[in-house]
């Protein structure tokens, strides 16, 4: 019986062999269906170079739906994109306002069993005066799996936002309770407006696992764009399949 290393060497050897074969074949003669060399430009009778089809740039999509240039501040774009994918957004000035907003959201959703992450931005909701008991929100500490599955709502933080898509980004080293953003049918996310980046590329640079191996802090980085959805049945959109049915983003406009 071959050992596990055998499959590895066999596959790597096969790859090297095939690539060598390809290099030899290309060296010998051009393959029949490789792209042809660029054709000479046709010239008309009076010596003018004629345009070829490739010169014409056909517009992609209608003029109305092409919006490549970004409009507005990152916050404005974030709110616009988040709404477009069905997430509700509110901007608040401070912790007290955040608590009020969350209380209102939970009441409107009829959420009685609510668990909250212990990440810094969310911590005030379960600690200190007026927190916890006042909101009916419990700390996630000691939450069992059974309890998680009967929660009506989960409150977490997000570490970054992406303006061009209205996306939340959670890093597992900083938001240690991402299941709260997934299992309960309502997810409330707290995000500082200073953490909204313009593009996906910007965020990737910031969450890049810069270390190697176990030095990498966050083993899981999660991007969330709107509530859970599917169109698997007759292409009809259904919201809230396995993940949350409702996503509320509370944007805290303060330096945290």
């Amino acid at each position, binding site marked *: 019986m071959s050992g596990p290393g055998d*499959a590895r060497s066999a596959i790597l050897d096969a790859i*090297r062999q095939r690539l060598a074969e390809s290099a030899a074949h290309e060296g010998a003669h051009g393959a029949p*269906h490789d792209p042809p060399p660029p054709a000479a430009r046709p010239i008309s009778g009076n010596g003018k170079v004629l345009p070829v089809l490739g010169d014409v740039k056909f517009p992609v999509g209608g003029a109305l739906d092409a919006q490549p240039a970004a409009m507005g501040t990152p916050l404005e774009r974030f709110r616009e994109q988040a709404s477009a994918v069905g997430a509700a957004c509110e901007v608040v000035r401070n912790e007290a306002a955040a608590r009020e907003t969350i209380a209102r959201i939970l009441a409107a959703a009829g959420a009685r069993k609510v668990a909250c992450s212990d990440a810094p931005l969310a911590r005030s909701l379960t600690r200190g005066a007026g927190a916890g008991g006042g909101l009916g929100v419990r700390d996630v500490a000691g939450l069992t799996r059974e309890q998680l599955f009967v929660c009506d709502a989960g409150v977490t933080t997000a570490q970054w936002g992406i303006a061009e898509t209205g996306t939340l980004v959670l890093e597992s080293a900083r938001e240690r*309770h991402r299941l709260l953003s997934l299992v309960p049918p309502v997810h409330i996310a707290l995000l500082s407006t200073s953490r909204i980046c313009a593009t996906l590329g910007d965020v990737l640079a910031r969450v890049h696992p810069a270390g*190697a191996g176990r030095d990498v802090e966050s083993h899981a980085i999660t991007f969330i764009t709107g509530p859970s959805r599917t169109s698997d049945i007759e292409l009809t959109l259904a919201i809230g399949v*396995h993940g949350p049915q409702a996503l509320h983003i509370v944007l805290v406009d303060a330096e945290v």
Partner: protein
Amino acid sequence: MTSSHLTAETFDRNARAALQDTQLRGALRNATTLFGERRRAAIGTVADWEGLRDQARAIKDDVLLHLDRYLEEFTANAEGAGATVHWARDAAEACDVIARIAAERGARSVVKSKSMATEEVHLNAALARLGIEPVETDLGEYIIQLAGETPSHIVVPAIHKTKAQIAALFAEKLGTAASDDVATLTAAARQALRQRFAEADLGISGVNFAVAETGTILILENEGNARLTTTLPRTHVALMGIEKVIPRFEDLAVFLELLPRSGTGQRLTTYQSLLTGTKRRPDGEGPEELHLVLLDNGRSRMLARPVTRQSLACIRCGACLNACPVYQQIGGHAYGSVYPGPIGAVITPQLFGIEHSAQLPYASSLCGACREVCPVKIDIPALLLHLRSEVIESGAGGGHRLEALAFRAYGLMMRHPRLFAWATRLARRVQRLARVGDRIGKANPLAARLVPPLGAWTAWRDLRPLAPRSFREQWRDRR
């Protein structure tokens, strides 16, 4: 694994049967039209779509030319982050590895998120032989699992089923009331699967991209089932084709900009999970173990020529399916393969053998719509032509002897001008039997029922008759 008895070998027959299914054709028309419209709108939101495609193709070309090096880099980094990496030369080996992992851990409740690679290797059947029944958690896959069918589209596997059919299926298998309201059906599936998620001890997923630089795997989805599958159970097994690797973490931005827009017209799917090894703290959320299974199963063979190597650039977006006039009419089951549509027509013969799928390279008019929409610019028509020549050279098509004879006769005629002139004069006399007015074809019963392969043309199209005097004859007369 195929839907009931449909295999790639009987593609022509499958296609004809599919064309009779008006409900299927209606569903396909709706789906492919909608996806096409959404794709067009979505790519309008990108400033330089063509540039992005070129960039993606360049990244893939680089990876494939140095695949061994990138796979080694990926493996080292993934293992450094706590993952266990396994290598599987073929389907049987992949199933063995995963079955062993499941058995060693006494896995009883297994959940699966969508993975074409696991269907390619028939993983569910292999696990069933051990008495393990993984439940598919992607809604479309769950539906076809309950129905005992195979997927008919890469992105929406149950697109061939109506609400009414799904309602009846759920009523039978889940005991739910037979309501065909989509929200109700979805809620029924969510309810049925939640318990499975809660008690699952093993989660099996696919991988969309694997980053060599960091050992990260990326999984994208809309429903949340992949997040649940890869977070709740204590063991996570991810199966990936060896071509899924990309060089740098930043390259993810290019592919994330291309894939959702191409496949469903979304800027981004609802969730992306970027997983780098296992959790850093024992009390943290996430599996204790992560097993990555790297699958060859014929992929390395495709590296041998540039024309076939580009098959491995595919990011499984499904755009070519939606654009293809053949797929739009017959759907995925007719291809008799887990990979249907244009990309399926080229990788199925390469993965599973041309002798079993010789008709697939001919399932095309070479219109090039697939090449137009492919985000990584795979030249599928060139690949189809290459595979057609392989079919002829290997004799896999069963030998179209009559066709070969006809081409030899044609060649002979073209090399001998007097023979050509004589044949033309003869044909002019014979055609009087078949022509009606200035057409040869359907109007004349004799012509319309010509022996195949000629009858295949005249059953649907007319031919123009030969002119009374050929150009050469007229030229000669004028001199």
